[in-house]
């Protein structure tokens, strides 16, 4: 069923009896050409592009829980193309362009809202670093604008400009950045993939791989063995666990990132704002809640919940940046599993096993990457060559010396 304004009017007049499920609930077949493990944003986007752009058929997405139950439904919904390094920025700019056309492509309202992102700076050194970053972004076809304090005061008068310790000197603004309704991204990709013939199979956990003579033959699941020509794994925080079924050790640790939402308020924030002197970022959802977060907790974990010290730290950051936030009540908070890589950048690569492919290491920033990640992973699965924008995302980049370390902190996953 195609969604349109006309359809809504027609359904309104006929008692909304004509809506059908957005995707089919199917039992797994015995054999597929392509199996995607993980029904998060990346897995579903991969299936969509594999079917729609690369014209492949006989594709299944296997999800251990329900689609959208992982990070794709837990993140703070920020999209941006404001990276510095050459291995990253073309990829994230490609992703931003896909976001800009996503709703037409999917025939689904994902509430893509380019409301802008302001990265605040507090020192001269930070301003120079942001100017350099802005130039790198512009060179790669993205947009960037440097605002001084006076210009910034006009756009965000409520900020604590005269904070004695961290005065706000200005901001690097990325106008095309913004937010997207995260669940709708999962649902939109799922519905579109389904309409192109992809089987989306929920409550189906992959528990092992069948590998013979260095070639993958299929996957063991909680619903029995399913044969496959090629298997692509995109399970985010569970990457190490799933790839251990193929006896692989990854350059990844799993950590928890928490997020927070306040009660609904009238519109107060123009876009996304990030504090440059502590780890705190905030935006306002269309329902009015302030959506904010900060650092990861910092220790290995598979529990999808964090601890209180980070809650305190995040709230302190909020109070330092915009004291008015102290008047809002916190409504809910939760955590999601981060696949933190050793240089803070992701992987989209083949493995040493014929027919087994890996997508992961997205850290706390994989939501914005969803369209490009799906596109590039589909490209790799379909053609066995990396997509032009994802050639740097190799699993062997540490031994070859080609890490992509935006922060320059080295092999310390909890510092990226």
């Amino acid at each position: 069923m195609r969604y349109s304004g006309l359809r809504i009017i027609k359904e309104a007049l006929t008692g909304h009896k004509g809506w059908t499920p957005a995707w089919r609930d199917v039992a797994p077949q015995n054999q597929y050409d392509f199996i995607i493990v993980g029904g998060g944003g990346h897995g579903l986007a991969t299936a969509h592009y594999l079917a729609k752009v690369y014209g492949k058929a006989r594709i299944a997405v296997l999800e251990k829980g329900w689609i959208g139950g992982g990070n794709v439904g837990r993140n703070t919904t920020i999209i941006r193309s404001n990276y510095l390094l050459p291995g990253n920025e073309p990829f994230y700019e490609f992703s931003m362009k896909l976001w800009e056309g996503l709703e037409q492509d999917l025939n689904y309202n994902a509430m893509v809202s380019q409301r802008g992102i302001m990265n605040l700076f507090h020192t001269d050194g930070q301003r120079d670093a942001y100017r350099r970053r802005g130039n790198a972004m512009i060179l790669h076809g993205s947009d960037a604008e440097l605002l001084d304090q006076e210009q910034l005061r006009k756009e965000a008068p409520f900020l604590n400009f005269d904070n004695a310790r961290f005065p706000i000197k200005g901001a690097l603004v990325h106008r095309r950045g913004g937010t997207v309704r995260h669940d709708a991204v999962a649902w939109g990709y799922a519905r579109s993939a389904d309409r192109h013939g992809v089987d989306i199979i929920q409550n189906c956990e992959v528990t092992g791989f069948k590998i013979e003579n260095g070639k993958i033959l299929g996957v063991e699941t909680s619903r029995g063995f399913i044969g496959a020509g090629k298997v692509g794994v995109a399970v985010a925080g569970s990457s190490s666990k799933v790839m251990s079924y193929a006896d692989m050790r990854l350059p990844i640790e799993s950590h928890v990132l928490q997020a927070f939402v306040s009660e609904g308020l009238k519109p107060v924030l123009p876009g996304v704002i990030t504090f440059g002197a502590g780890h705190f970022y905030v935006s306002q959802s269309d329902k009015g809640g302030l959506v904010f977060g900060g650092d990861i907790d910092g220790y290995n974990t598979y529990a999808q919940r964090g601890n209180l010290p980070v809650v305190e730290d995040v709230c302190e950051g909020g109070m330092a940046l915009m004291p008015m936030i102290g008047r809002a009540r916190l409504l809910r908070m939760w955590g999601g599993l981060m696949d933190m890589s050793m240089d803070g950048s992701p992987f989209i690569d083949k493995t040493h096993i014929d027919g087994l492919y890996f997508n992961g290491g997205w850290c706390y920033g994989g939501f914005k990457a969803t369209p490009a990640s799906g596109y590039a992973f589909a490209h790799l699965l379909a053609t066995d060559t990396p997509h032009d924008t994802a050639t740097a995302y190799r699993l062997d980049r540490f031994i070859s010396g080609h890490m992509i370390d935006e922060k320059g902190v080295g092999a310390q996953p909890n510092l990226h």
Partner: protein
Amino acid sequence: MLIPHPLLGLRDAQEFVYKGDARLMARPDPQADDALQAFHDYTYLRDNPAGQHRELWFHEQGDRSWLIVTRDTRTHEILKAELARPRGKGERT
């Protein structure tokens, strides 16, 4: 989380800095023929288990000792905390 420090009793995890998998204490032999690969694996690859994990916590805001804490990464339950000590000559960890 509270860490049962073997000398100081229960301490808030906030007093510690997390330093990752305790396997990092076993540095590879830099003279070995496969030293490049061994150091790559040592520096960059992790088991990252869902379950029991032996890990290093440095008591930076306390007595500055290093602990090896055994913790279940699925529940955050701490099963054991002991003082970390370097291997003696010829001793295996």
